[in-house]
């Protein structure tokens, strides 16, 4: 007779000392794990509920401007620094980590229309309705020194927007015409014009540095190639485009914020139709900015809301709004993909979390694992009405 009965040695299943971890033998036999689908569904439901509970996107508000914020620029080399300009010609530099204004000075007489950092982050350029383009140092002036621009350029025409090339020293401005400048020169190196209408926004392509896109007031979006002498493409919409933003990861794609409450995503290889139309705003969309991952973008609107869209979805994932927030003038997605900055008519700059329920600060490995798991579950059961 040969006989064997299950006989477990408790030492193999119990921990030796109190400081040991518990032993957790696993057996992945599906028969020992009944109700797999139902339990996963409940977990997904719990994850969604927790997400709602923790959805507190508003981080802080930076106040100090004495007029509406007109534009914001991100520093390409430092995450915590931000420069903002307002309608009264004041420029402020902020430290996001400390939530403090580091510097403030009157830069222009008149509305500042554009501000941008140069790629190395040492200087930033502002331009205003007083037809001047001023370059400023990022470094604070020494004690006793006055705030003075490094360089001032007087433009012959009215200017309304600026964009600096990601590599190199060129930058572009728009206004009556689109002009290409070199940092060291005081005259535009090139001027582009198509028709007689003025332009109000211009953006360099973040990858292919020779491509420029501008929004014109004749309802069109114009693409330029700086190696060419003239513009190359024009997309005419039904209504005016306010701003546009290139996708930093797929740089042949750009999204435009339109006056007709929608955002349109275009593929430059095929401009006949937009690849996607993003609807949800209930008033004109004023600004749009892509996340550094290129998967999502944020838009601000005259309807006093910020909306976050996934690139390939027609409707927004999230909408941010506070009671006191007025019409949005500019929105930016920070380069660490975690925050959204918004400047609005009522003089405040607001900082929001890009994902409303995300925990700030470092995550423990187990925490991250659990979050990833619930994320996967949510995706799996997304079609259930209670989870979506």
């Amino acid at each position, binding site marked *: *007779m040969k006989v064997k009965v*299950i006989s477990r040695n408790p030492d193999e299943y119990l921990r030796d000392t109190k400081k040991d971890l*518990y032993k957790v033998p696993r057996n*992945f036999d599906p028969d020992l794990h009944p109700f797999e689908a139902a339990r996963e569904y409940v977990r997904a439901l719990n994850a969604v509920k927790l997400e709602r509970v923790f959805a507190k996107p508003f981080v802080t508000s930076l106040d100090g401007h004495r007029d509406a914020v007109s534009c914001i620029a991100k520093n390409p080399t430092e995450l915590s620094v931000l420069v903002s300009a307002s309608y009264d010609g004041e420029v402020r530099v902020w430290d996001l980590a400390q939530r403090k204004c580091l510097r403030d000075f009157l830069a222009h007489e008149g509305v500042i229309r554009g501000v941008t950092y140069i790629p190395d982050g040492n200087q930033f350029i502002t331009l205003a309705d007083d037809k001047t383009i001023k370059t400023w140092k990022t470094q604070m002036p020494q004690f006793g020194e006055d705030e003075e621009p490094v360089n001032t350029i007087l433009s012959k025409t009215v200017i309304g927007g600026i964009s600096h090339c990601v590599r190199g020293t060129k930058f572009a401005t728009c206004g009556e015409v689109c002009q290409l400048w070199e940092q060291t020169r005081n005259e535009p190196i090139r001027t582009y014009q198509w028709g007689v209408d003025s332009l109000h926004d211009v953006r360099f392509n973040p990858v292919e540095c020779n491509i420029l896109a501008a929004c014109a007031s004749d309802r069109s979006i114009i693409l330029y*190639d700086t190696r060419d002498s003239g513009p190359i493409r024009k997309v005419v919409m039904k209504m005016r485009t306010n701003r546009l933003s290139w996708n930093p990861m797929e740089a042949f794609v750009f999204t435009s914020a339109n006056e007709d409450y929608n955002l349109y995503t275009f593929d430059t*290889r095929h401009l006949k139709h937009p690849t996607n139309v993003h609807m949800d705003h209930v008033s004109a969309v004023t600004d749009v900015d892509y996340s550094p991952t290129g998967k999502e973008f944020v838009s601000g609107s005259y309807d006093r809301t910020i909306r976050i869209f996934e690139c390939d979805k027609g409707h927004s994932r999230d909408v941010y709004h506070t009671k006191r927030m007025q019409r949005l003038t500019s929105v930016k997605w920070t380069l660490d993909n975690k925050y959204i900055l918004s400047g609005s008519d009522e003089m405040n700059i607001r900082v929001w979390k890009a994902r409303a329920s995300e925990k700030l600060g470092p995550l423990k490995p187990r925490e991250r694992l659990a979050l990833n798991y619930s994320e996967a579950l949510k995706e799996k059961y997304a079609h259930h009405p209670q989870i979506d």
Partner: protein
Amino acid sequence: MAKTRYFVSDDKKAKEETTKKVKNKIHNTKKKERVYNVKVKPNVWGRKREDSKIKKVKQISNPNPKYPGKAPVPKELLEKYSRGDGINKSGIKTGIYKKKLEHKERNIEFTTEQAARVEILLTEDTGYLEAEDGETTTQFTQKQIADSVDIAAASKSFDLKLMDFGPYCAKYTRNGRHLLLGGKKGHVAAFDWFTKKLYCELNVMESVHDVCWLHIETMFAIAQKEWVYIYDNQGIELHCLKRLNRVTKMEFLPYHFLLATASDQGYLSWLDISIGEIVTQYNTKLGRLTMLTQNPYNAVLCLGHAKGVVSMWSPNTRDPLAKILCHKSTMTALHVDPKGLYMATAATDRSLKIWDVRKLSGPLQSYNLRSAPTHVALSQKSLLALGMGNVVEIYRDSCTTPTRTPYLRHRFNIPINSFNFCPYEDVLGVGTEWGFTSLLVPGAGEPNFDALEANPYQTKSQRQESEVKSLLEKIQPDLITLDPTSIAEIDIPTLKDKVEAKRKLLFVKPPKINYEPRRKGKGKGGSAKIFKNKKIVQELAKKEFVKDVKVVTTEMRSKKVAKNKKPKNVLDRFLPKK
């Protein structure tokens, strides 16, 4: 035009070529500045065509054929861990979804393979009993088996003589560590049967009909003469559930936290023990209920009736989900195996049938025995135990192949009252007229437990944590259906459902709106205005509803009209428009 510029190669020749092209294009562009007039109506154009032009990277073949990679996993093992076949991709029209689903399928395959590979890490082996030539396994007595196994295992075979309060029923916890005994005459005892440590022993001074552990070993329910009581493991009465009246059998559904009871008067009830409320309670209208078992695979209750019928019940419908005529005479016992594959039923005409619970079209096996079995039980490894008077017989492989001779047999001096296989152990616990006997049945239990599911060596803190976790993951009773995977499947309303829903709209009353206007600040609208606003909202809702109904009715009518439409006349165009 700009396309070539995106993918400029480093070769000199290519560079020259591209510059040439660019030069040419500069000349061309002056003539061909293109303007696109965009239609605002979204006619979304996919990127598929452009993307498909990008060249795919070739896969490199194995540079070292000496090492071909991982060892293949046997097919049967993969089958054990697989969740069924993948989806049929032929019906998917868009490429992007096809790719997404392919990716998903690949992930699922990978996980199955990984799970199958992990099996070599399992530490314990299944028990067995093998006879040598000229012997049969049936001839071995419990004493012989206990003598030839190790001491720890031998201590699992024991006998409790409790002469005064029998007959006894016994239940194990889900992890197999704890045992609850209930004597008909009121004796109740809970203990850890590994270490033989007694938690509590009490006499409830009433008749005890059934006992049942709740989700953890600190609580158990007892069906007494009138009502169901809940005690903790110190024997302190926690609750008296007067709504569960004259209960005969109880089952606990651990993932739903439901205590299911069957009563003397034919009532079935589900009590949610996490919130202490009865989920549903209704009369089955099938008379006294004496046989109750749960299907652990889908948490459906199975009842056996005197007419030879087995009925399956969920708390969501008042009618049984299924009714099967299993036997031509009165049933005596039924049990569903822990995997939820087989159901064993026995009747007074000495017949025993094994059913596939998922199919139920006909019995898998049908046996005629020498005497009528009064109790049946199936173990984790599908061993079948039969109780006939004072004899327990255990059969091996009886579910899949017809078997004649029992695997083991044990004869008592006294009649058996109930028995259960202990999960994760090779033990059959038999409650008899005079006490409780624990029999060794090699090969009955699953040797490797999953500590996150049921852990016999659970400590207090582990128990507490798992209790919280399982409470968070409590499945709602609405999800109890015959097919528990249905939640993960796609729900598509049939045409019939759609038509039915539309037709229903005609007979629905307008919904009542309980609109409470917001109290604005002081001085902004008195109660009269609020009342007015309320009326307006309600009227609006009513109008909208009536409009909807009208649309539906006209649609339905127009369909009828369309059929008897006259052929069009040329002069019809001068008729007034409708």
